[in-house]
C-alpha cells in the first residue's frame, strides 16, 4: 500500500505546481472561445494576429520579471524601463544607430550593476527597483519629453511582418519563451539562479558565489526588458516613456498566473507566457463585451487577487 502511494506523491505535487498554469491555460482557451463567439473573425490568422500582437511586449517583459522572481526579487521598474527603451529606439536608434545600440547595452549593464548593488548592500530589491524606475522615467523624459519620434525602418518592418499561414505574434512569443526556458530551466546558469532563490546556503556550501547568480539574473532581465521595449516600439511606431507603465503589475501578475512564486527558486517561462497572454486578452474580451475601459484595471486587479486566493485554496486541498 505504501509502495503504491509513494510514487503517487510526486505526481500530486507536480499537479499542485502546474495547477496555476493549467488554470491560466483553461482561462485563455475560454477567453478565445468567448472572443470568437462575439466576433467570429478572431479565429482567423488576421484576427489572432490582431488579438495577440498587443500581448507580445508584455509577455517578454513578464519573462524579465520571471527571471528576477526566480532569484527571489521583484522588479518594480520594468514598466518604465520598457518605456525608456521605446524612447531610445525612437530617438537615438534612428539618429545615430551606433550610439543607440551602445545606450541599450548600457541600460543592460545598468541593470546588472543594480543587481550587484542590491546584493552587496543587502537592500530590498523592491525599493531599489522602485527608485530605479524613476531614473528610467527621468531618462526617458530627458530624451523625449512628449511621446513621438519614429522607429527605425527595420524595426517598423518587423512590426509589419506578416508570415503566411500563422499569426506573426506567435513567433516572438514562442522564440523568447524557448530561449528563456533554455537559459533558466536547462542551463547551468539557470540552476545557479534558481538555486539562489531556493537555498543560498546550499549554493555557498558548494562553493558557488550567490552574487554572480544575482548579477546574471539582473543582466538577463535587462536584456529581456530591452527586447520588450523594441517590440513595443515596433508596434506603436514611436517612443513614449510611460507607454508601458502598467507592465510593472501586469508582469508580476503574469508570472503568478503562470505558476511562479514570490519565494524564488522556480522558473516558469511557459507559464509566464500563458499568463501574460491571458492577462492581455482580458482587455480584448472586456472591450468586446462592451465593458468600459475604466473598469479594466479593476478587473485585472480582481483577477490577480482571485488567482492568489484560488491558489491558497488549491494548496490546502492538494496538501
Amino acid at each position, binding site marked *: 500500500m505504501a509502495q503504491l502511494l509513494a510514487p503517487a506523491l510526486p505526481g500530486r505535487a507536480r499537479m499542485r505546481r502546474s495547477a496555476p498554469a493549467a488554470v491560466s491555460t483553461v482561462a485563455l482557451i475560454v477567453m478565445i472561445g468567448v472572443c470568437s463567439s462575439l466576433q467570429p473573425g478572431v479565429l482567423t490568422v488576421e484576427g489572432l494576429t490582431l488579438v495577440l500582437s498587443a500581448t507580445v511586449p508584455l509577455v517578454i517583459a513578464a519573462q524579465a520579471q520571471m527571471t528576477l522572481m526566480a532569484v527571489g526579487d521583484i522588479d518594480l521598474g520594468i514598466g518604465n524601463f520598457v518605456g525608456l527603451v521605446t524612447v531610445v529606439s525612437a530617438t537615438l536608434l534612428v539618429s545615430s544607430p551606433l550610439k543607440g545600440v551602445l545606450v541599450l547595452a548600457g541600460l543592460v549593464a545598468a541593470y546588472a550593476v543594480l543587481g550587484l548593488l542590491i546584493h552587496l548592500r543587502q537592500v530590498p530589491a523592491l525599493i531599489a527597483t522602485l527608485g530605479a524606475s524613476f531614473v528610467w522615467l527621468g531618462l526617458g523624459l530627458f530624451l523625449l519629453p512628449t511621446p513621438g519620434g519614429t522607429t527605425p525602418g527595420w524595426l517598423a518592418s518587423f512590426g509589419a511582418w506578416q508570415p503566411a499561414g500563422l499569426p506573426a505574434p506567435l513567433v516572438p512569443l514562442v522564440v523568447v519563451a524557448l530561449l528563456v526556458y533554455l537559459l533558466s530551466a536547462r542551463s547551468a546558469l539557470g540552476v545557479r539562479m534558481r538555486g539562489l532563490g531556493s537555498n543560498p546556503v546550499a549554493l555557498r556550501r558548494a562553493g558557488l558565489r550567490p552574487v554572480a547568480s544575482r548579477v546574471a539574473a539582473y543582466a538577463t532581465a535587462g536584456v529581456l526588458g530591452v527586447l520588450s521595449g523594441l517590440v513595443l516600439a515596433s508596434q506603436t511606431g514611436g517612443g513614449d516613456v510611460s507607454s508601458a507603465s502598467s507592465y510593472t503589475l501586469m508582469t*508580476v501578475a503574469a508570472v503568478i498566473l503562470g505558476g511562479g512564486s514570490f*519565494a524564488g527558486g522556480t522558473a516558469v517561462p511557459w507559464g509566464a507566457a500563458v499568463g501574460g497572454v491571458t492577462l492581455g486578452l482580458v482587455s480584448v474580451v472586456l472591450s468586446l463585451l462592451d465593458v468600459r475601459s475604466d473598469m479594466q484595471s479593476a478587473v485585472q486587479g480582481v483577477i490577480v487577487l482571485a488567482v492568489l486566493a484560488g491558489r491558497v485554496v488549491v494548496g490546502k486541498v492538494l496538501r
Partner: protein
Amino acid sequence: MNIRVAGPRSWSGPWVWGFAAAALVWLVILVISGQGGGQTVSLALSLAPYLVIVGLGQMLVVTAGPGNIDVSVASVISLAGFVSVAVASATGSAAVGVLAGIGAGVLVAAVSTVAILGLSVPPIIATLAAGLVASSITLSTANGFTAVPDAGLRAALNLRPAGVPVLALAIAVLTVLVAALLRRTVYGRSLVAVGQNRRAAERAGIPVARVVAMTYLLSGALAGLTGALLAAYIAPSADLGTRYLLDSVAVVVIGGTLISGGRAVPVGVWGAALFFILLDGLVNLVGWSTAAQNLLKGGLVLFVLFLAGGGDRSGGLASLFRRRPRPAAATPTTITTTITGDDTDG
C-alpha cells in the same frame, strides 16, 4: 527605557540629513533668485504637508518590517479626492467630505489587509491590486464629474497668517501625534517590535496580525486625508496622487526611517518632504524639466538606499515571502553548544 521623547541613542542622526539637505537647497535658491528667502520657505511649508501626511502613513507601513509597502497610496489619494469633493458638495459640509475621503482610504486599505492577512498575498501585490480597483472607481467617477471643491476649505488651506501656513501647523501637530502614537501607545510599541523582529514579537505575545492590519488601515486613512485636502487645494483629478507613490517612499527612506523596519522617524519625514518640495522649486527656477526632477529623485533614493545598506539578507524580503518550510540553514547559532569553561569537570 526610551520613553522620553527622542531617545538620544537611536535618534540623533538620521532625521538631520533631510533638514540639512533642505537648508542647502534653500540657500542655493536664495543665491540664484536673489529674492527674500522667507517667501520660499512659506511656499514650501504650504506644499510639504500633503507629502508629509501620506509619508507618515507609508512610514508606519515600512516600519512594520521587510516586505511591507503600501503602493496603493497614489490611487487612494485620487479616489479620496473625488469622494471628498462629491460628498462635501452633496452634504454642504467640508468636514463630512474630508471624513468621507478618509473613509474611502480605509475601505481600499481594508481590501489590501484582507488579502495580506487572509490570503497571504505579499503586501506589494495586495496593495497594487487594491489600488487598481480604486483607480478604476476613480476613472468612472471622473467621467462627467462637475462638483467643485468647498471654497471654505480651500481658503483655510491657503491661510497663511504672517507667512506661516495654518495647514503646516496642523500637520506638525499630526506629526507629533504620530510620534506619540509610536512611543506612548501599546499599538505603537507593538508595531515597532513587529518591525524589528516579527518572530520575536510573536513570541513576546504581540498580536502580529492585528498590528499589521491596523497599520495598513492607518496608512489608507492618512492617504485618504491627503487626497481630501489636496483635492480641495488644487482640484480633484484622476492623476492627483500619481507622484505620491515614489515620493512617499522616498521621504521615508531619506527621512531616516529604517527601510528594513523597526525604527520610525516621523520628524525625518518633514525634513525630507521640505527637501523634495524645495528641490522641485529649484528645478523649476533653473528651468530644468520634469525629466531632471525624476532623475534627481530616483538617483537620490538609490544613493541613500545603497549608502545606508540593508540588514541581514536572511531576514529580508525573500524570507517574508516564503511560505513553504525550508531546510534550516546551518548557521553558527544552531550549533552553538552549552559548553563553557566553568562547566567542564575534571
